[in-house]
């Protein structure tokens, strides 16, 4: 079946602009995660959605970052007033949900964000 998809695959933006990154999870997966991969910081957790529960935003690096998940499916990560340090690959993952189980996460190909 279809895996996790992300768009765009590449995004170049000017410092100070806002960007939106999109994630389409695997159908039926109730848990959705955003991570950031950069050379200096490795793979960092950003935010987690599970069903209708309040999201875990503990990994968002600043209030310029926000995310939403509409209808329990598609998610959008928004970065306002982008800075050069925001340049990274943003990875989305989804999994079967519920903390009682230990489910592997399936990752999308990522969006490479470059802030000039």
């Amino acid at each position, binding site marked *: 079946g279809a895996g*996790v998809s992300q768009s765009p695959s590449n995004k170049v933006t000017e410092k100070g602009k806002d960007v939106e990154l999109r994630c389409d999870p695997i159908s039926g997966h109730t*848990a959705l*995660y955003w*991570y950031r991969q950069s050379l200096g910081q*490795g*793979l960092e*957790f950003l935010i*987690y959605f*599970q069903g209708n529960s309040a999201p*875990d935003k*503990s*990994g968002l690096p600043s209030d310029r970052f926000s995310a939403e998940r509409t209808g329990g499916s598609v998610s959008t990560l928004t970065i306002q007033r982008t800075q050069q340090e925001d340049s990274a690959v943003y*990875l989305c*993952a989804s*999994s079967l*949900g519920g*903390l009682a189980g*230990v*489910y*592997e*996460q*399936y*990752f*999308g*190909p*990522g969006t490479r964000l470059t802030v000039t």
Partner: protein
Amino acid sequence: AQSVAQPEDQVNVAEGNPLTVKCTYSVSGNPYLFWYVQYPNRGLQFLLKYITGDNLVKGSYGFEAEFNKSQTSFHLKKPSALVSDSALYFCAVRGVGSSNTGKLIFGQGTTLQVKP
């Protein structure tokens, strides 16, 4: 706080030889451990996970990992390396306690280079 360490930035092995990629973890309580592989310009692919039970876990592409509670390690192994195994490997632990949202905490990654 939970953490994962991959002490080797790069592992070099000749094709046909056994390979080991090391991982140690620090977590309170019982750990849930994962290995992922990342090929160039691709997202992460799940290889295997340890939840409980048998300390030797078998996964995709002939990989296996050995959980050692006393040494807090979860080393990735393969009896006979292939050139196509060359990639970036990540060890991860799932957050526990107050961090138990299913988010993954990743090691810094180890580049595996298999030479013909």
